């Protein structure tokens, strides 16, 4: 410990917080063993610091109490005992960055012990400071647990890849790592619930063993589809439509990457992928992107997006990343094949591409019929004129009409969308429905391709047909609406 360190408790807490952020931004799978060895020290130091903070005079038991910290400490001790019992990650160097966090928290606890023990939190401002300190400690544990979890996930993925086809002894790091991932996820959710994580579902201390791989992808796709329908039925606003279109574009992009990997590894018919799937996925991706750009023009920076929709999009993105990403880009086909059964993933994507047609129809209906669609005056005026000019170039000469008043443009008020903008939107969504239908048709070959895929490819068998049928969701079974003439 640096004897010259004259930082305040608040500054030490910020240091610990920023250090965990830096860890999270730089973490890799190689860091996992050292981080897992050191994480317990961070939690122990945080717990000691927490205990050193003056307690409420009247023994208050609001949300700012010691129960959560006690549970987190117990979880950390449980993890440590498991590590000792299993001999993993075993002896080795500590993670210097997390060690720094632990030392910083210990330094703060020492400081309070030496200089602040007399403080009685009767004053409102002092109580607020203490609450803020507790929040910062919990926030640091939340960010730190996420960082260790990211390292553990990447480590497990690396071990899975390098030990594929080898003995269970050589691949035993996988179940050990997965156990650590589950415990860290529970820890993160509990700490996240404390700091007001409205996106988390507070785990009641139990191990969270969420689905992963293609099962997680399937659930995320289904969850997204249901939430998109719910949100668009209740609040078909431009920001919600923008996020829906962007997420659907993301699904098409991800489908392209995963099915490409499937074709390269023998899980998807190569000819069908090259000649039918890839072109139709590209076309529907571009159509979704084009429609998203249109909705984006109709949004203002302060517009709010439905947080349930945001959460569903975030989960979908995370599920895709788990299957298809490797650090900053797509994973190699063999890497994806090592993570999940790509035939099974193809099935889930086929259902998602079917469901996408219905989402496209809903969006087209909003574009054509919703009388409440509005947008910023300047963007609407610009878009109306651009669409009129385009029509003129195609030989349709209309009357000169002022679609948005100069006063509205000057003040950039929110205005009802002009008729040419709506017409352009309807055209774009008509194209969208058509391309989504084409992608659905092209993807129908995936059923057969999966059943016909070569055996002995090193992958686990796909689910039996009966199970695949059970997995179909009501949304996916909805017949697409007939395209409007």
């Amino acid at each position, binding site marked *: 410990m640096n004897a010259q360190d004259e930082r305040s408790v608040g500054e030490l807490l910020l240091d610990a917080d920023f250090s965990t*952020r830096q860890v*999270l931004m730089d973490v890799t799978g190689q860091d996992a063993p050292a981080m897992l060895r050191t994480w317990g020290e961070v939690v122990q130091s945080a717990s000691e610091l927490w205990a050193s903070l003056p307690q409420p005079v009247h023994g208050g038991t609001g949300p700012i109490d010691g129960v959560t910290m006690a549970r987190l400490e117990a979880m950390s001790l449980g993890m440590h005992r498991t590590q000792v019992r299993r001999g993993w990650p075993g002896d080795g160097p500590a993670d210097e960055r997390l060690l720094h966090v632990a030392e910083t928290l210990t330094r703060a606890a020492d400081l309070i012990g030496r200089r602040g023990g007399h403080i009685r939190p009767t004053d409102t401002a002092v109580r607020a400071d203490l609450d*803020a300190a507790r*929040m*910062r400690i919990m926030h640091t544990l939340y960010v730190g647990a996420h960082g260790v979890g990211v390292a553990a996930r990447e480590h497990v993925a690396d071990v899975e890849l390098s030990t594929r086809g080898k003995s269970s002894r050589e691949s035993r790091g996988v179940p050990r790592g997965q156990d650590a991932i589950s415990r860290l996820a529970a820890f993160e959710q509990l700490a996240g619930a404390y700091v*007001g994580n409205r996106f988390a579902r507070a785990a009641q201390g139990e191990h969270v063993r969420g689905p992963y791989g293609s099962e997680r992808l399937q659930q995320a796709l289904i969850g997204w589809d249901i939430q998109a329908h719910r949100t668009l039925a209740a609040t078909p606003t431009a920001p919600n439509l923008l996020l829906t279109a962007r997420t659907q574009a993301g699904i098409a992009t991800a489908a*392209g990457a995963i099915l490409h990997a499937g074709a390269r590894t023998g899980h998807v018919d190569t000819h069908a992928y090259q000649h039918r799937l890839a072109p139709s996925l590209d076309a529907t991706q571009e159509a979704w992107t084009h429609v998203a750009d249109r909705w984006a023009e109709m949004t203002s*920076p302060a517009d709010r997006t439905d947080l349930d929709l945001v959460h569903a999009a975030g989960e979908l993105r995370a599920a895709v990343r788990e299957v298809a990403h490797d650090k900053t880009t797509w994973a190699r086909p063999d890497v994806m094949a090592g993570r999940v059964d790509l035939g099974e993933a193809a099935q889930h994507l086929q259902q998602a591409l079917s469901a996408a047609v219905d989402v496209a129809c809903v969006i087209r209906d909003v574009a054509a019929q919703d009388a409440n669609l509005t947008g910023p005056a300047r963007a609407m005026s610009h878009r109306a004129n651009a669409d009129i000019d385009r029509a003129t170039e195609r030989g349709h000469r209309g009357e000169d009409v002022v679609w948005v008043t100069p006063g509205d443009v000057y003040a950039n008020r929110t205005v009802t969308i002009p008729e040419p903008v709506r017409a352009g939107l309807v055209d774009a969504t008509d194209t969208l429905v058509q391309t989504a239908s084409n992608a659905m048709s092209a993807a129908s070959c995936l059923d057969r391709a999966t059943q016909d895929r070569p055996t002995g490819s090193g992958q686990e068998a796909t689910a039996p047909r009966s199970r695949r049928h059970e997995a179909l969701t009501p949304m996916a079974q909805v017949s697409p609406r007939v395209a409007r003439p």
Partner: protein
Amino acid sequence: MMANDTIDQDASDTLAAVARLLRHAAVRAWAQAEADGPRSHLHLLGLGIHTASCQAVAMLPADADLKGHPPAQDDVAQLLRAAEELTRSIPVLDQTAGISPLVVAICDLVREATP
């Protein structure tokens, strides 16, 4: 949508700046993705940044100023790092509930955007 009317002015101003940076970063990521084509992984990076910006906006009061000139930088990773640095001055309090997952989301995006 619900708006947060309990957040203090300094935190609100900073968070609004974070939201603007994220929004611009998403636009830049998507512009690059569209230039690269429909198979670009940047489509999903842009989606992640956009959802983070939605999280930031959700924490703001209804009258927060989210307009203003777009930031000068165009580099997505730099914009994300700038957004993370700004979040450091936002206190972690009941009034800023949601800042912790936002910080985690931005740090994850920095890692994802940095080669």
